[in-house]
């Protein structure tokens, strides 16, 4: 039975459907004797459990257990440099909302997430429309757009840092074009957050292009031709045919980009370290590490991490519900 999906597996009760619905089916050959059938069921369950065990162990050990431990730690004043730890209840959470530094961090993260969610989505769809053609040149362009996605965020950040630093390539070009005082892309506190967001958009763009291309290639050509015969303009065809058909791709891109925005850490660490100045590019994920690891305030850092988890879960859930409902309506 190896390699057979669970929902396709014949059982004595029938055939399990892909969404849990059970269809009645003829009993399989050799299942007439109840003892043999029971033994077979037990053996199958056991084998599946054995195969699932390593994955489950890793997930439980490296995700669930630390998560529960972090939630527990967030109710203490645990400090890496203090031997004694005390239970403080929800005090850490209360302190968070009266901490101006945390509120600045929250604001930065929301701005960053909004940019990182909207820009690659819009540009990705536009570029996917342009690349939705046959030919080696278009295939090559798809690969070019996808390259940044497979690069490490740290590598991307190091490359961009050398380009947009005050003495970097970009400002040298601008000076060559006669701009006497080009912007401090990473040193100006008013610009740095947008520089970081732009680089994240650049890296995530390829992902959106690929997802939207897959979505576009799933749009039936007959529908497009029928709309064209009916006299629909390209804009009308996009609005009435393409847009509803790629709704699942919009959902996937939006949710992935939102989660990526909330989790932003690598780019901030490499390019700005949360600065320039006080917290101008500090994000929630970066702040968790600064508080819990660098500052040794493990309890307070755990409270920030827990709140980030709740925020990502709540926003992702809300976005998924909203976008799924939209998919049905369209």
């Amino acid at each position, binding site marked *: *039975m190896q390699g057979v999906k669970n929902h396709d597996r014949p059982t004595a009760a029938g055939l399990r459907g892909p969404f849990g619905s059970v269809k009645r089916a003829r009993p399989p050959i050799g299942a007439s004797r109840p003892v043999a059938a029971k*033994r*077979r069921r*037990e*053996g*199958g369950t*056991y*084998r599946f459990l*054995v195969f699932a*065990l*390593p994955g489950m*162990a*890793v997930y439980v050990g490296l995700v669930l257990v630390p998560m529960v431990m972090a939630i527990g730690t967030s109710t203490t004043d645990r400090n*890496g*440099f*203090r*031997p004694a730890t005390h239970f403080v209840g929800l005090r850490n959470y209360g302190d968070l909302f009266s*901490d101006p*530094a945390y509120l600045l961090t929250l604001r930065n993260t929301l701005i960053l997430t909004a940019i990182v969610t909207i820009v690659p989505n819009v540009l990705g769809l536009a570029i996917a429309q342009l690349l939705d053609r046959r030919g080696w040149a278009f295939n090559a362009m798809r690969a070019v757009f996808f390259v940044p996605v497979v690069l490490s965020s740290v590598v991307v950040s190091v490359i961009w*840092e050398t380009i947009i*630093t*005050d*003495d970097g390539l970009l400002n040298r070009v601008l000076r060559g074009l006669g701009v006497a005082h080009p912007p*401090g*892309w*990473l*040193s100006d*506190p008013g610009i740095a957050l947008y520089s970081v967001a732009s680089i994240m958009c650049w890296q995530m763009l390829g992902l959106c292009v690929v997802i939207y291309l897959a979505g576009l290639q799933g749009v039936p050509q007959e529908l497009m031709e029928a709309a064209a015969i009916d006299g629909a303009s390209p804009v009308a065809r996009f609005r009435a045919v393409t847009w509803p058909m790629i709704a699942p791709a919009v959902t996937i891109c939006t949710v992935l980009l939102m989660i990526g925005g909330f989790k932003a850490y690598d780019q901030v*660490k*490499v*390019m*700005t*370290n*949360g*600065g*320039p*100045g*006080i*917290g101008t590019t500090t994000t929630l994920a970066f702040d968790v590490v*600064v*508080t819990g*690891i*660098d*500052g*040794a*305030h493990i309890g307070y850092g755990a409270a920030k991490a827990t709140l980030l988890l709740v925020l990502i879960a709540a926003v992702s859930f809300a976005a998924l519900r909203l976008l799924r409902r939209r998919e049905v309506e369209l």
Partner: protein
Amino acid sequence: MYVPRGTRLRTAAAVAVAAALALSACTVGDGNVTKASGSGSAVTLTFLTFENPNLTSEYWDAAIARASAKVPGVTIKKLVGTNSTAYLQQLYASGQAPDIMTSISPDGFAQKGELAPWSADEMKNFIDPHAGAIKGQTYALSFNVQPIPLVYYNKDDFAKAGITTAPKTYAEFLDDCAKLKAAGIIPLEIGGGGKDTWAAAFGFGAIVSSDMLTKTPDWFSKRAAGTVKFSDPDFVAAAQKAADLSKKGYIDTAGLSRSYSDVEQAFRDKKAAMYPMGSWFSASLDKNKPSFDVGVFGWPSDAGQNVVPVVTGGGLMVNSKAKDVGLAKKWALAFAEDKANLDNSVLADGLIIGIKGYTPPANVGAMYTQTLDIYQKAQQSGQTVPAWMNTAGDGSLPPGFSDQLNAAIVDLITGRKSPQAFAAYLDQRYAAATR
């Protein structure tokens, strides 16, 4: 489907072995192992090092081999990491703490009982055995002294601006800055962005040292005790001086987006005339001479003192739960007192050695000699003060506070925070860091 008992056992064993192998991959990055000479059953001790352009892998390997040759029965396993408090804390928290470590502040670890103290007898060869002491106990072998910062300057730029000697008072310093600016030369290269923001803090650190610590050397111990605050007038006045330097256009603010190495390169590229930096810069200048002559002076105070902030320490520490604490201490002492090791650290990192009877090698460079001369004169005339941003022990800054201080200094330099708001912010973050 029935699965025979033997198959079940084999499957379960395979899963267990795979899981064990997967989990065993999660460990600290390790490096070379230097074995003890002629020892049958040597104790293996781990030694946490860090590498940079001055202190290379070869430097550490050779130094470890020399110390190991003097202490039979020890095999050293070199670990390469970073010399940061946060990193060491992670190693302790994950049960991977090294037996011996170097160049990390003992603060926090010592109070938690994680380090073995050094006795007076063990430190009998050290000039300042109580440097960086915590409640009377020394935890790091204070084998070197570092002035942080001194002001390295471009003599050609000074000559172009008509300046003949280095400034003795702060008023002269401001005059020189004005002359340099009038000659089209930016006076000060201060910078370090991103992860290197620490490098941007040295100018302000020097002002606080020269203005406040000459009068109250234990100011930061008092801050820890809560008897003084950053918002007190003397600290705000020091902040005002730093803000004024920037407001008058005496600082190359483009440096705030440069990495540490790029800031150094900017000074070499003549982007500014003066560069406040730690004494290790002398080794870099001696190894790779710039295209102009370089001089050095201590940051001038209002009263006309060329103050030299110094930190003594930087030495080896031993884990109180090391496999063999006695042997680890013996090896650490051998490492710290070995003449060839000390000579190499002088040549590679410009360290001033704090071991009795030590004389630097004959082939040290001119900048090292100038730096050493300034330090020795300041020491003789009582013009050394604690390098408050880098000192360890009682009165040092709490863990995690330095990064916030460095970020706030950038806001002060760029004018985003007034000196008063800067001081109030530091008080707020200090309270948060020590809560």
